[in-house]
């Protein structure tokens, strides 16, 4: 039966290929749109609850949150490291204080100066975590290591920006490589914040005049939410001048608030994508049903012929179900493959938003879409053969 179905399909190969192509295009668009919008939304929310307060320079709180948590966009500026030092001494309210500085670039990957606390939830694939009391060590993200062929002990030279050819003279030794996390951490180089200061020749100032050292943000985890609110109130809109006369103005945010604003936008986008997915699916249903029905209509003569020579409607039904089932299965497998291929191509774009698309991530709704497409490709066959079975075989 399957052999004959395949032969019958080979006879109509142009028709079959056109049907498969039309199903693949529409289905892959629906699956891709759903998956990407979901992963972008999930990726943004996954990190939002990690921190209580982020203190940084005055400006856009979204930019501060996105830069500190997802490495997207540019830092708003700098604040004195003394802010972090003061909070480190506040053992009553504060659990952890993590300095965050983003300065350099390594072959297009951003370099972040921080402490090992920032990476405490990340697992190391090989090597070890950087030593906070040392300098010139780097833990690199999975994609950075993969794309640059890095291994433990390699020395990397960073530059001021992605476009700059002028690298720092001092190299940083790779001491660890992170496991793949399908997040923006895969694309970043992490080093001690002191390393960045050394690279920018702040080491002398750091030793003698700590107020000269700056960071882009200070991430704080408090002992309870009330302390977080207190710290936000203390540092939000605070202006001060350091010993060298440099003026600073800070803002303090609760990351969930800032992310909630972003999420409101992405939720709208996601909603629009879902509506579009629905429209595409509806078009899928119409297009695939029409194509399948036309296909079956053209096969009416063949069905009548088979009935006249004595092939039962049961066998004819089964034959066409197998044919259209094969077309459906081939189409959904190809559609899934095409959607993943497109995701791979889109990764560069969405990673700039701090999200790395996981091509292996399959949502249950995607399975539903693919299953629906398969059903749509076989149900018209059942309807048509049912109609044909009610007709006189001589009518064909």
């Amino acid at each position: 039966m399957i052999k004959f179905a395949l032969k019958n399909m080979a006879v109509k190969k142009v028709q079959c290929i056109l049907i498969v192509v039309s199903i693949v295009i529409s289905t892959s668009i629906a699956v891709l749109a759903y998956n990407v919008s979901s992963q972008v939304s999930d990726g943004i929310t996954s990190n939002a609850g990690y921190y209580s307060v982020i203190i940084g320079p005055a400006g856009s709180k979204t930019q501060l949150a996105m830069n500190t948590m997802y490495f997207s966009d540019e830092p708003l500026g700098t604040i004195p490291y003394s802010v972090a030092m003061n909070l480190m001494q506040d053992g009553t309210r504060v659990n952890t204080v993590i300095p965050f500085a983003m300065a350099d670039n390594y072959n297009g990957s951003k370099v972040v100066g921080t402490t090992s606390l920032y990476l405490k939830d990340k697992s190391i694939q090989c090597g070890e975590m950087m030593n906070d009391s040392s300098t010139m060590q780097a833990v690199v993200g999975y994609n950075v290591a993969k794309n640059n062929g890095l291994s433990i002990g390699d020395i990397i030279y960073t530059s001021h920006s992605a476009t700059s050819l002028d690298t720092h003279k001092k190299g940083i030794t790779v001491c660890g490589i992170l496991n793949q996390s399908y997040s923006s951490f895969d694309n970043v180089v992490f080093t001690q914040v002191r390393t960045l200061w050394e690279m920018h020749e702040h080491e002398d100032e750091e030793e003698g005049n700590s107020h000269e050292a700056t960071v882009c943000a200070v991430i704080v985890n408090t002992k309870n939410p009330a302390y977080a609110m207190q710290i936000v109130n203390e540092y939000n809109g605070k202006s001060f001048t350091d010993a060298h006369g440099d003026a600073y103005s800070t803002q303090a945010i609760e990351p969930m608030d800032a992310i909630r604003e972003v999420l409101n936008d992405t939720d709208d986008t996601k909603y629009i994508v879902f509506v579009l997915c629905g429209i595409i699916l509806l078009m899928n249903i119409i297009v695939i049903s029409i194509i399948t029905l036309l296909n079956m209509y053209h096969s009416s003569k063949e069905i009548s012929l088979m009935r006249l020579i004595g092939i039962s409607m049961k066998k004819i039904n089964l034959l066409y179900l197998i044919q259209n089932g094969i077309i459906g299965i081939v189409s959904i497998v190809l559609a899934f493959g095409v959607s993943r291929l497109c995701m791979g191509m889109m990764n560069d774009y969405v990673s700039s938003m701090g999200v790395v698309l996981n091509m292996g991530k399959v949502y249950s709704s995607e399975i539903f879409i693919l299953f629906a497409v398969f059903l749509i490709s076989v149900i018209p066959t059942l309807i048509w053969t049912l109609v044909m079975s009610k007709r006189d075989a001589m009518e064909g």
Partner: protein
Amino acid sequence: MIEIKGVKKQFQNETVIEYKDMVFEDGKSYMLLGASGCGKSTLLNIIAGILSPTKGNVVIDGENMQEKSQPQRDKLRIKQIGYIFQDFKLINEMSVIDNINILRLEGINTKDAPELLNKLGILEKKKSKIKHLSGGQKQRVAIARALVKKPQIILADEPTGNLNFTIGEQVIKELVDVSRGKTLIAVTHDDRLAKYFDCVVDMNEMTSGMQDLVREGGLSND
């Protein structure tokens, strides 16, 4: 044995054909001769179970076809009846052998197809698509498909209708030859072919008694 008992067929356009009782004996070849529209093809379709009579019964080997369901009649047709259609009923885009192997869908063994095609002189065409064959070759494929399942009853509707007399005569000779020992009922309007059949039934005189219509040895050609 095929018995036609009081069969009447009324079509939607209200054309009514009434058949006199007839008996087709096992192992004999019959030629149904008559003018267009006299009901020759309709009778074949009723015997094959493709059409149901409005009234009356067709009994094949003691089994009343009208007591059977359509799937049961289809099963009987695929197992016991080889039907050669006037317009061949072949799938043009498929090869000769695939047109025969289509019967495998119903579990029919078609391993004798090459031998049969050889006997009919078209073995070398077995992989050719039907659309590339001549009318005579298509007719032979239709005959091969009808006979490959070794049916007890062979029905042929105008098997020479699309062929010139010389090729048509050759096809009839081959058909009668390969159908030897089986019940063959062939419809034709060309009485020159009657000599190849055991019996000739003049369908124009259906109101007459069966015995009057059948002349052993066939009609003369003149």
